């Protein structure tokens, strides 16, 4: 089964992970811009990070036949840091316009400070300007309240709900999200957030509409194969193949296609057309002759 991991921080993963993901059927991924495990002290390091999400990381993914897209944004944790926040916000327009960017994100609340709210709102406005959907991170602590406040802000700003993906949902927040027009993401984690078995229960209860699962794998204890493992578990537990495919392929594609930039065709950035015309691709992909 072809699968899409719509939230995975590959920057922190190895090529072994890419290989394992490709072997399990992951054909496309979205890497959201987030923090890097420790606070950055300079806006320029954000810019280098955005550039790696647009250059180096798509190349790494392409070596394993995986299409790589990204979201660009100022994450809520570092929105609180006056050393970087304003300057990073000013950088965003330059990068939100790029081809591989399929949403603004991860944005939202973490500690639910007033500063986080300011940057959350400012980035919703940017998303409207650049006609992009948004990927909304919800806090680990006080999650239900954080989700309610996120939904309220989106409504207050009249941001189109069908262009919003609220992420990291659990049993308590999912019904709140589904009551709106927003999409609901679930991060399947080894110990925290959501697991495969609980996800099966949620799908049986709420169906497949606007439901998305991801691995949210990063530099912490996490597993980039969680989308594949969850799909497997859903099938085992009797959820139909069509519904599983909707959740792990069609839904994320429908959501991110709203950017107008989710081009799943062959990645011609990585294929030298000149090579093909000249028919001299002899050295590519095959072992050169051994001279002894």
């Amino acid at each position, binding site marked *: 089964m072809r699968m899409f991991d719509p939230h995975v921080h590959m920057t922190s993963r190895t090529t072994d992970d890419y290989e394992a993901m490709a072997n399990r059927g992951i054909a496309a991924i979205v890497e959201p811009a987030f923090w890097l495990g420790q606070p950055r002290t300079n806006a320029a390091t954000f*810019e280098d990070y955005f*550039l790696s999400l*647009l*250059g*180096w990381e*798509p*190349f790494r993914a392409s070596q394993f036949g995986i299409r790589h897209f990204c979201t660009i944004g100022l994450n809520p944790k570092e929105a609180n840091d006056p050393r970087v926040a304003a300057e990073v916000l000013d950088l965003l327009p*330059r990068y939100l*316009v*790029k*081809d*591989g960017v399929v949403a603004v994100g991860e944005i939202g609340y973490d500690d639910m400070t007033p500063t986080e709210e300011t940057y959350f709102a400012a980035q919703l406005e940017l998303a409207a300007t650049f006609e992009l959907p948004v990927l909304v991170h919800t806090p680990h602590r006080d999650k239900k309240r954080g989700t309610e406040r996120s939904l309220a802000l989106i409504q207050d700003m009249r941001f189109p709900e069908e262009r919003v993906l609220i992420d990291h949902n659990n049993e308590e927040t999912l019904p709140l999200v589904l009551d709106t027009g927003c999409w609901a993401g679930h991060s399947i984690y080894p110990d925290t957030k959501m697991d495969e078995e609980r996800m099966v229960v949620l799908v049986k209860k709420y169906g497949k509409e606007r439901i998305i699962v991801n691995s949210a794998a990063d530099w912490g204890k996490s597993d980039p194969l969680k989308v594949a493992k969850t799909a497997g578990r859903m099938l085992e537990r009797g959820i139909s193949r069509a519904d599983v495919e909707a959740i792990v392929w069609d839904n994320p594609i429908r959501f991110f296609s709203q950017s*107008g*930039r989710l081009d799943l065709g062959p990645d*011609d*950035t*990585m*294929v*030298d*057309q*000149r*090579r*093909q*015309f*000249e028919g*001299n691709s*002899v*050295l*590519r992909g095959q*072992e*050169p*002759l*051994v*001279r*002894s």
Partner: protein
Amino acid sequence: MSAQLEQYVYAKLAGGLHGRSRLDWLSRALAICDVQTLNAAFVLASRTIGSDVLPPSDAEALADADLACIAHGAPADELARICVLIRATRAHGDPVALATEWYRRGDNREKRAVLRALSVLDDPDRYAELGAAACRSSVQLVFEAICSSNPFPARHFSDLAFNQMVLKALFTGVPVSSIQGFDARWNQELSRMASDYARERLVAGRSVPVDIDRVIASPAAATEAS
């Protein structure tokens, strides 16, 4: 020379699907002299012009050899970006800073377009540092944009930069035959580097690139032998 390229790109875009709107978009973009707006056009070119590849036979219609080489097998957005970059470097007080900035802040396709453009920019020698820096990219297609089917390196690289590029081509499987002006830039040091590399591979029990002989042997000797 840039007028010739623009004409060629216009002619190419006029045909096919959405020809009219693509043409309008590019002519509007090129009518602008403001560097910021030109950069926006440069970034948006893939989504507005598309990335369909222009058939190679048409590129031969270009009288200028460099232009023909750049246009050969190039996608539409890349050629549109080259036209936009040429305009922008002429509109800007510091064209090297501009090209370097567009390269640095570009995604892989934008970076490629900057590198493909170098030899047709005014006074190209001043972009030698940018071209040599691009050879350090680990993104293979960015490296190939400067190394392969590009007249720039042979004409403007130092021996050190040129030799390093050729060695990297051998390392990464880029055919030596695709390096423009190779014979004229062949040198003893390059030959030594290639034979050391061949020896290192053989000692390790590894394969050696099929075209390494072309780098080891002097082109003059090869001509005499044949």
